């Protein structure tokens, strides 16, 4: 807690300031001054390529690894402490196995006991099993569960007792689309009850469930903010139009405070509208659509903002 003032931002569930971490004295920095925040009550996506530092960040946040420099503030309580934050933070560690010989219920009961749930551990275990649709396998040994079921059980352990902050490292890794979808639904159902931070390579999945996103690369945060803002969904519209060219002069005259750009593609092209921060993009879009229709320019497609995937790739390309 060197340079992070506790509860400086009460609306943040997690803040990292200048975190640096490397695994050997002369090795490369896995985290190289990572500074980012995750607002309370949101479902946050942590995005980055392999080796960006996502798992290292999780390990530092939940006390498995000490940072070399910088500070972490969880729930306004300073760095992770399993006693001070007992029962308030749920973690799904990546690649951690569950003892094969215990039943799902026994495993969760044990986790609940360590979280200090006491006599409520059994009920919490049953509730968590129900949330991940494993209640009918509660008394089966973990060894008899499929990979997907074990992953769901791990997620259940992170959600056990409804902690205020849930950290999920690649929760859908290795799951088939059906299992991934059901797990995604679990997280959506949990929205509002906890702050959820989830890392995944599936950007479409993250875009669907997240309302805040942090992009990290080479151990630093390259972009963070609401998904709408990061993807430009609130400011940018791409119109695929043609054949022919759009009446740019008329558009600029009607919406002078907006930025317009035109990219020719085949017989038509892509018209990009970038609205100022305080503009109502819906109203602007209606005005623009009327002008295009009056000019007999066919609108073949419309996309608000970039997809998270596109944003991510643009960020990657810019860095290269």
């Amino acid at each position, binding site marked *: 807690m060197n340079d992070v003032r506790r509860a400086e931002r009460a609306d943040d569930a997690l803040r990292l300031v200048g975190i640096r971490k490397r*695994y050997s004295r002369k090795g490369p920095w896995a985290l190289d001054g990572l500074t980012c925040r995750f607002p309370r009550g949101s479902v946050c996506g942590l995005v980055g390529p392999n080796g960006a530092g996502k798992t290292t960040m999780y*390990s530092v946040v*939940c*006390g*498995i*690894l*000490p940072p070399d420099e910088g500070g972490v503030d969880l729930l306004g309580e300073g760095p*992770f*402490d*399993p*006693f001070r934050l*007992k029962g308030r*933070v749920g*973690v799904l*560690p990546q*690649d*951690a*196995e*569950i*003892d094969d*010989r*215990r039943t799902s219920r026994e495993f969760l009961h*044990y*986790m609940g*006991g*360590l*979280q*200090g749930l006491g006599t409520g551990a059994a009920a919490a275990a049953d509730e968590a099993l129900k949330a991940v649709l494993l209640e009918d396998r509660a008394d089966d040994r973990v060894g008899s569960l499929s990979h997907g079921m074990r992953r769901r059980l791990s997620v259940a*352990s992170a959600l056990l007792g409804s902690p205020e902050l849930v950290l999920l490292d690649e929760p859908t890794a290795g799951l088939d689309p059906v299992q991934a979808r059901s797990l995604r639904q679990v997280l959506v159902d949990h929205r509002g009850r906890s702050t959820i931070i989830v890392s995944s390579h599936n950007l479409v999945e993250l875009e669907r469930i997240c309302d805040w996103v942090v992009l990290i690369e080479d151990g630093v945060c390259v972009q963070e903010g609401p998904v709408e803002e990061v993807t430009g969904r609130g400011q940018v519209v791409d119109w695929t139009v043609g054949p022919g060219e759009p009446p740019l002069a008329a558009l600029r005259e009607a919406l002078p405070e907006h930025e317009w750009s035109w990219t020719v593609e085949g017989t038509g092209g892509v018209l990009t509208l970038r609205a100022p921060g305080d503009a109502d993009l819906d109203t602007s879009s209606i005005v623009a659509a009327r002008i295009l229709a009056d000019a007999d320019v066919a609108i073949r497609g419309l996309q608000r903002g970039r997809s998270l995937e596109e944003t991510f790739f643009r960020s990657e390309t810019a860095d290269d």
Partner: protein
Amino acid sequence: MAGGFFVSVRDALVVARFHLMKAVRTRSAAVLSIALLVVHMGGAWVFTEILKAMENSAATALRVPTTDRPGAMLDVLRDREDFRELIGGLLPDPSLMEWALNLPYLSIGHFWIALGTLPFLAAAAGAEVLSGDIKNRSLRYEVVRTGRLEVVAGRFVGQALLVFLAVLVANAGTWVMAMVAMVEQPAVAQMSTLLSFTPRLCAWSLPFLGLGIAASMLTANPNTARALALGGTVGSFIGWGFLSSREADLLGAFAVPLRQLLPQSQMLALWDAGMGWLAPAGILVVFGVVTTLAAFPLFLRRNL
């Protein structure tokens, strides 16, 4: 302990309970119990054969019939020189020998066998406590919920309870041998003597259990941990043998304090008719805690 004393103790007990139940369900408990049982029943059988040979020797001298099951002539044996030499060899202190001569004899053999075998079994069992869970990273589920010290303490307690259960099983084996292979053995006295030795044996196992757990904190490979733990145990006996020999004179004044640093220094003191064994047992518990915590600073910084 970081979380306040009561929270830490509660967490350690939760870990101990889970660890014990896990061990009971897996082969580790069965292997430990069966190994002790086989060693003790085998040792008891050897001891009854020695008693049988002595009794038959006495019977021949007295011109009475020999026997296949010893036990009927123990009162006669008690006054014979060869038998007193046998017991005296096990317990060099004359007063201890006189006390032991009034105990059920298989209990004496049981105690010595346990003193020789428990260190190795406890060290091997301790080596499995953490290394496997470091390897498959399952410890991460625990260390994000409680402190690492509580995890180690809980597993130490759980494994110590497992050793206690294994010693009880070994007691039963020795008792069965006494009832089956000997005659006129006092069933209740035999069992109560064995039970009175049980806490002493558990205390004796703790330094070696701690050695095993320390080894399991150092490496994620259970086989390496086991080799380290057994190597350390063998080393402690070799060191004890050296420090007890005349060659230890080479170390001058250091020989005696060095001996006191080994758990074997408390071995004979555990033989006590009254409650005098409590002090050496307490020292062994401290040894157990110290050896366990020897590797803890590394475990504390380890990426689990």
